[in-house]
């Protein structure tokens, strides 16, 4: 029972990371397109400035929770995905630096340079995170010690000897890029005044159709590639609630976009991402890292979890800790609510 509970706790924390850091990654993706002048770019950055760092903490906190609750999974997946994770680290470093350093100097070389670094690293991170999810769904070649190592690519086929990148994981990477691009565009539209708002809306609208089309493709392909998904939904039909949530929210995005209600469109996008992620998580449950070689070598919540005492005592510090963290977020987002404005920079 405890492993199941911690599995869902970790899943929710990672989902929190994706929907929160997802919008500032998305804002980064569209940064160069929606904001032309320095003033407009400061506006986009300011819409995420006070919160992006806290959003990223969900990755660290989720990672830490994964580490303590499922140490064998952490050990296996982090060493197996060695190269892409290191690249994710480099991208996170570049991105964090660009957000923090850009404002310090105002000239025609410094700021545009950091703008480009910010935007590129955001885009690549979205693709990497998508590809990582694709790898988990596809499965990895685990050995009997629960270890594996994946090169960046082999023949781009999701076969017995896959790489991190194959056509399937690249597809998921592109899908994640578009989903977060839409997510970020809706956030920027909500937080900024015209003309940045108009440009963000103009991006979100066509991207919706691409996301909708790819959602169908990704679903069909994933069910073919990972038979466990179909099994899970056949076994526990209640699980259809997750894809249903995704579907309804996807439609919600379009409806609220049409009504020009940016906040509700953004919140729908949050629910859409949560719906998609929980569908995947539910589909592979109780596996956490499927083996594509011999299914019996897969890591599950049962063979990868920490012993019971640790999981039990963990609830005692986790529950107050996460409530306090939720309170900070409520406070912070309230404090910085509403549209951003920028004044002339005074020196």
């Amino acid at each position, binding site marked *: 029972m405890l492993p199941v509970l911690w599995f869902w706790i970790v899943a929710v924390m990672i989902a929190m990371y994706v929907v929160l850091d997802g919008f500032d990654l998305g804002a980064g993706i569209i940064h160069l397109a929606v904001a032309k002048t320095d003033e407009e770019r400061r506006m986009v950055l300011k819409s995420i400035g006070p919160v992006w760092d806290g959003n990223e*903490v969900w990755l660290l906190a*989720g990672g830490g929770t994964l580490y303590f609750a499922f140490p064998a999974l952490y050990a296996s997946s*982090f060493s197996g995905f060695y190269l892409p994770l290191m690249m994710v680290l480099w991208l*996170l470093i570049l991105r964090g*630096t660009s957000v923090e350093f850009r404002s310090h100097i105002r000239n025609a070389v410094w700021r545009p340079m950091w703008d480009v670094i910010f935007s590129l690293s955001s885009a690549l991170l979205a693709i990497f995170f998508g590809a990582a999810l694709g790898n988990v769904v596809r499965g990895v070649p685990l050995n009997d010690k629960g*270890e594996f190592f994946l090169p960046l690519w082999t023949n781009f086929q999701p076969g017995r000897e896959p790489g991190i990148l194959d056509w399937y994981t690249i597809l998921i990477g592109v899908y994640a890029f578009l989903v977060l691009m839409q997510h970020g565009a809706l956030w920027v539209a909500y937080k900024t005044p015209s003309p940045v708002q108009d440009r963000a809306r103009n991006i979100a609208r066509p991207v919706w159709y691409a996301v909708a089309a790819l959602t169908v493709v990704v679903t069909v392909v994933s069910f073919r590639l990972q038979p466990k998904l179909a099994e899970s939904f056949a076994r526990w039909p209640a699980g259809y609630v997750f894809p249903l949530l995704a579907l309804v929210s996807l439609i919600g995005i379009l409806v609220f976009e049409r009504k020009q209600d940016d906040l509700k469109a953004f919140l729908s996008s949050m629910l859409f991402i949560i719906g998609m992620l929980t569908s995947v998580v539910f589909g592979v449950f109780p596996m956490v890292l499927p083996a594509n070689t011999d299914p019996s070598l897969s890591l599950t919540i049962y063979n990868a979890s920490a012993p019971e005492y640790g999981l039990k005592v963990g609830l*005692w*510090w986790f529950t107050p800790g996460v409530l306090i963290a939720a309170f*900070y977020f409520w406070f912070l987002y309230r404090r*910085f609510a509403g549209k951003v404005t920028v004044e002339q920079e005074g020196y």
Partner: protein
Amino acid sequence: MDIALDLHRFHFAFTVTFHYLFVQLTLGLALLIFILKTMALRTGNEHYNQAARFWTKIFAINFALGVVTGIPMEFQFGTNWSRFSKAAGGVIGHTLAMEGLYAFFLESSFLGLLLFGEKILGPVGHWLASLAVWVGSWISAYLIVATNAWMQRPTGYRLGDKGEILLDSWWSLVFNDWAFWQYAHTIVGGVITGAFVMSGVGALYLLLNRHEEFARTFLRLGVTAGVIASILALFPTGDQQGMLVAKYQPATLAAMEAHFKTGEAAPMIILGQPDVEKQKIDNPFLVPGVLSFITSKRWDAEVKGLDAFPQDEWPTNIPLLYYAFHIMVGLGTIFIAVMVLSFIQLRRGRLFDSKPMLWILMLAAPLPYVANTAGWMTAELGRQPWLIYGLMRTAEGSSSSVSSGNTMFTLLGFMGMYTLLLMLGLFMIWRELDHGPGAGVEPAGAPAAADSVARS
């Protein structure tokens, strides 16, 4: 030689050493900024608010570099040390996850408010934000030190049927007595860095005849904090930490002092080069009995030498361990001398006019970085050959699935990237120092900082 293992070790050592350059200043400045904000609130004097704003700008640059270089640390437990993580993640994962929940969320939320929120929070709210950032960074340090302390002196565990490490008492993990003194010593080290940097900047400004009123504030606060912290680093924190090493890691203590042969009235080596092959000290400069006194408070007590331990339990790099320890202690002694002299001059009202003392304070500012690094090297090299003292050897903990070629690739990547970050960071901090305190209302150290936020 096992190059894959050496690369994993150097990978972690390099990234953590670089990360800690920023962490130590964060730990010290967080406290000093909070003190400045408190003085501003109590006196109502805008001068202290301006001083706090200036240091917050530098804090922000430093903190950002600390954050971006800190994320790789958590990842590396899994990427480079997967066998260790699999074995011990169920134990130390508690303190690491608690750091995320109890410290990072606090710091990241309130740093935003400290940087952007002075106008919307008001004086008391802004003071609270500085308190939250200080408390958050110090909680973070505790949980990381507790993690390290468990590796130095594992407690609260039992071994399962197959020899696996099982958490048995969360309480003894989090409140390890090793963690208490190691934490106190670490924190005091951070305050020393903050105090030397602040007084060094004050000294620089006075020598340049710039921002003199601020310079005097920086010197007053920096030297006062510096004299307290420098003394606390020796006694009781350093002293107690040494006693713990003597008690739980006797082989480490012998190696730190290059004490090869067991004997009574063991000397302390002030200078000299250890020759591990011949088991002697070249060019020794000794004070007899001091090592005995430090470890058991008796001048003639017996101290076990390395000969009392099997050679495969000796630390693997005895010369480096020895030098790291001696550099830390030597610099610590210099810090006490510099800060006590400065403090006496400050009390007598002569510090601000004493050119030699100001020069010394300015030039000493980088030294705490060396001392803190040497201190951590002492702890980490001293733990060898163990990854978890007495439980798991370092050679058993690395990721066996990651080849040396891949580790080398990412090591070079980090080295290149961190070189650029260091240059950028120094350049930007230098700009802030050159710009100086006093101008502007909100810190420029944040994106679009001159802007205000409209509440809807």
